[in-house]
């Protein structure tokens, strides 16, 4: 799919964006699957959310675990380091695709899933082994909690 997108778009940045959008669309549905299978209670704070994603989410969907690290001072930003990444089995990036984030779908999935549980976030790749780094590291940043909107007003 990534290969086809590269052929269709030819611009690596555009492909990165498409992958993120596709991931987002997948994520907004995946969260229902996750919540129905995972048996987790509502997270009281973002630190818990990150842990749940790393230990339960990744395990359930990709069969790997991640470690949470590098928290910022007010606990709104952290890193998720994957110990393994099944998406990149058999994959090598050629010279012509240097700006590509092959696994950008993952960023979108997490962003989409969290938005469905009222958190607006920014998810980016900090380290990517396909680009020569030594690990797969996602940087997860909480932008804001979105107040839940109820479709019915109490006083109607």
């Amino acid at each position, binding site marked *: 799919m990534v290969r086809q997108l590269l052929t*269709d778009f030819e611009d690596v940045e555009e492909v990165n964006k498409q992958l993120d959008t596709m991931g987002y669309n997948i994520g907004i549905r995946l969260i229902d699957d996750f919540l129905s299978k995972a048996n987790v209670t509502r997270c009281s704070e973002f630190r818990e959310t990150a842990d749940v994603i790393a230990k339960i989410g990744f395990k359930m969907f*990709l*069969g790997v675990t991640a470690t949470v690290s590098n928290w910022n001072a007010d606990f709104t930003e952290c890193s998720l380091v994957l110990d393994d990444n099944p998406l990149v089995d058999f994959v090598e990036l050629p010279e012509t695709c240097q700006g590509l984030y092959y696994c950008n779908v993952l960023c979108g999935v997490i962003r989409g899933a969290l938005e469905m549980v009222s958190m607006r976030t920014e998810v980016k790749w900090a380290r990517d082994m396909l680009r020569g780094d030594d690990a797969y590291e996602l940087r997860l940043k909480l932008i804001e909690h979105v107040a839940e909107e109820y479709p019915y007003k109490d006083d109607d």
Partner: protein
Amino acid sequence: MRAGSREVAESCLDGITMEMVATYCDRLHSSKPDLAARRIEAIGFQVGQQLAERLVPVDLLACVNFPFGLILYTRDRPRFTDHLEVIKFICKDFWAEVFKKQIDNLKTNHRGVFVLQDTRFRWLTRISVDSPLTPSEANNTTLAAAQAGGKYLYFPCGLIRGALTNLGVPCAVSAEIAALPACSFIIRIKV
């Protein structure tokens, strides 16, 4: 491949295949359904080729000793004696690996056309259409279902075409939905 096999959740694959259809058919090429179909089929073709590479059973690893002492391991590919053998491989091993079941019915006209029927195609089981209220609506619903479901068959057609091409059988593959979730794949071998 078996011993080191990794698994991911099936919902990931469902998510990707559905999103691939949504992206190509609704977002990128909404006014050109044929182009969208060709793109998705092309993705399937690439994947099918690679899957065939990895799924063909390895009967023995032949060790070949070169004159200057290099040792090369080559895979001894099973000799598919004719097209029917390859098609049967698709119906049994390939389908079992990709869709967790075998093809239910295989028909051929013995002149290069094969029809593979799957009475419960895994990727169509997720599609539902609203229940019809009247008999005339029922006809429309079946048609709508066939059209809606058809988009999800471009990728599998490509998978089959890619696998067959890799195994030395150039062909064209199309699909039809009679009634969800049953569908047929029609393989036309190119001479």
